[in-house]
């Protein structure tokens, strides 16, 4: 066996194959190389909270908070580069508790509320990210650093383009009779930066077919949420949740920090669903009321609601700067009304 010949042949085939795979995703599917939003990346950004007190501004919430806030605009207006800790498909309130328990944090915490998610038991989809922050091994830490150069150079190096993820979502698989509903994977809808700023992917906006896949996924997930618990159980759980929110906010304030709540916009079918499933007065007003904090609901301000949300749930990347600018201004005013002048807000 001529091993050098074997190795050269294998290397050439792999190079051609990987090149073709990369070209397919870039050209035919319009993918761009972008950070993978890994647990390690979250942990890396999370550690900035420890190192940057007391002037940190931290964003927590679901993907809406992550997609809608423009960190550059925020910095331009406040002088502070925010720490983006929002996690897609995740409930902000357990993360609020997590930050409240961090004695190093005494800055401004911006909590994004996505109504259906506050009833999730626990953190939700990205609970592993928080666990990873506590458990990360030196090997994982280094692996994350080594992964970044690949993430920013290879479009196919993305969780949406993993071989078995791609195979799973093909439509050629027939339905299996008797199989209960199963949640489909959420497709890639963003490009992400090292600081975890996520921008809604242009393709979601200008490719109607892809847009329909994404909105179809939201609808499919929301229509198949597990049935709510009996009213008395739900009421007791919600009251406990409000108590926890109040306790967490108090704890942060005792250290000199401050907490504000925001409700990013949604539209169309998604908004209607939220109106019915988690009415504003029941969820939003209760949480903000329990916290005794400043709360900015997008629907109360034309400059916050007049933005495009191409797939009903996240602001277009073309509108996020304008939205963030307006949000900072409103937050400043609302905080000033309460006599809160925070260095993190540039005031």
């Amino acid at each position, binding site marked *: *066996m*001529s*091993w*050098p*010949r*074997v*190795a*050269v*042949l*294998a*290397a*050439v*085939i*792999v190079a051609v*194959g*990987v090149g073709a*795979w990369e070209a397919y995703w870039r050209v035919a599917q319009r993918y761009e190389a972008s950070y993978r939003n890994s647990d390690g990346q979250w942990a890396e950004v999370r550690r900035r909270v420890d190192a940057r007190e007391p002037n940190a501004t931290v964003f927590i919430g679901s993907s809406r908070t992550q997609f809608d806030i423009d960190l550059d605009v925020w910095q331009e207006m406040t002088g502070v580069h925010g720490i983006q800790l929002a996690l897609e498909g995740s409930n902000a309130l357990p993360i609020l508790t997590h930050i409240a328990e961090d004695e190093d944090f005494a800055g401004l915490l911006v909590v994004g509320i996505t109504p259906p998610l506050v009833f999730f038991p626990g953190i939700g989809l990205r609970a592993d990210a928080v666990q990873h922050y506590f458990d990360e*091994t*030196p*090997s*994982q830490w*280094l*692996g994350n650093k*080594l*992964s970044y150069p*690949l993430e920013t150079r290879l479009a*196919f*190096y993305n*969780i949406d*383009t*993993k*071989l*078995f993820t791609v*195979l*799973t979502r*093909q439509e050629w*698989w*027939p*339905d*299996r009779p*008797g*199989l*209960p509903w*199963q949640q489909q994977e959420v497709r890639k809808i963003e490009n992400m930066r090292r600081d975890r700023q996520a921008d809604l992917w242009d393709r979601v906006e200008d490719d109607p077919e892809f847009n329909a896949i994404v909105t179809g996924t939201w609808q499919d997930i929301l229509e198949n949420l597990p049935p709510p618990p009996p009213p008395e159980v739900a009421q007791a759980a919600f009251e406990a949740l409000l108590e926890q929110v109040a306790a967490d906010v108090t704890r942060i304030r005792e250290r000199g920090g401050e907490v504000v709540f925001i409700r990013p916009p949604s539209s169309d079918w998604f908004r209607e669903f939220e109106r019915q499933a988690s009415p504003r007065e029941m969820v939003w007003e209760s949480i903000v009321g329990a916290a005794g904090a400043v709360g900015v609901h997008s629907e109360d301000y034309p400059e916050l609601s007049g933005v495009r949300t191409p797939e009903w749930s996240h602001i277009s990347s073309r509108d996020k700067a304008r939205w963030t600018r307006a949000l900072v201004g409103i937050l400043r005013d609302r905080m000033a009304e309460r006599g809160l002048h925070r260095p993190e807000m540039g005031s």
Partner: protein
Amino acid sequence: MLFNSLTFVAFFALVLALHNAPLPWKVKKTNLLLASYLFYAAWNPPFVILLWLSTIVDWHVAKKIFAEDRQGRRRGWVLVSILVNLGLLGYFKYGGFLLENWQGMMSAIGVTWTAPGWNIVLPVGISFYTFQTMAYSLDVYLRRAKPADSLLDFALFVTFFPQLVAGPIVRPTQLIPQFREPVRASRDQLLWGLGLITLGLFQKIVIADGALAPAADAVFGAEAAVPFSDAWLGTLAFAGQIFSDFAGYSTAAIGIALCLGFSLPDNFRFPYAAIGFSDFWRRWHISLSTWLRDYLYIPLGGNRKGWHRTQVNLMVTMLLGGLWHGAAWTFVVWGGLHGLYLGIERFIRERWGHATVASTAGFRLFLALLTYFLVNLTWVFFRARSFPQAWSMTRSMLGFGVEGSVLVLSTYLVITVLTVTIGMLAVHWYMRSRRLEEVVAKSPWWLTGLVWAGMLFLIVITQGSGDAFIYFQF
């Protein structure tokens, strides 16, 4: 550090470069030792102390045993090694399990006692390196080997990173002599080693994690009971997953060692083509089964003390082998089932083993499939989260419908599990009496290149999730 991680790629490239640099052999060995500590510390740095403890104790114990003629003293010294190594294992791995069972026993006799919290992190690979170092002292005690001449060689034997955390469990006589003289892989050895690493990672990343884990996780993670079809598919998926995961690790470990010029023993020989259970255990986790044979079964008397005692010895060995895998009664049952199978097989062989039908190809194929079927039943106990789940799965698999059972696998997963399982069984059957080296040597070079490229390409596009190897937890 996981083999299937970018950290390892960078680490191994550096180690390989240093190992091929023009440095004295002692410096190269020191580099390997430091690299091995680094490899282990990359999980949890303080646990390197356990490696040092195990190394120092067995280094001194073996020297004392060797220098001592009085049997009582020799026994005393070997007990020190056993107590330290099993003590480490007991504390870190079985402490919580023992407390929990003690609490249960007390409660059964009416004594209410609550065990203190036992939140001890299990040091990765502790079951492997404690057995390896214990074997060193036992070999010297049993006069099978002399103590190592050099502490550096012995420390490297204990710590050698390719096989440190998930085997193969190497005997001192296999590895320590290889450290004496300078070794460096030839060009062909290096390429063969890289090929083995590719094969191992393909098994782990593509087959175990990519193709089979989703089905196994869905079935064994289901809240409700699953019906016959999904119970079987989930178990077949797990059978393929655990083989590909563990054999993948061993293959990669052998490849990594070979790239450095060292030879590690085989740990798997296509076990799903086994005809009977004694054959299965000659093919599955060979380094553990031979360890248990040499240091437990034979010292217990093996098959030299009559039929009944042989059966007891077999069962004790397999029960402890089960417990070695994890601190839970489900693992003990898994071992017990294998012990039972081995006992029954021995009984049948003694009575009907020479029947003409036993050597026909069709009957051998039938026996292989029967073995595979029975092995799958044991995997249920290995993988299940609890006994109720294991019973529920077993009932479903044996056709006793479980009320309220719910399908969990999509058509995609059904087809994937069946395709991979049939493919895996075909490969195991074809390779049953062959060696990989021979098959590759007889293949055209372009075919070998094509297969290698195919595996590598699939590894790259599967991307991998960085999941730990299943056997790390043991």
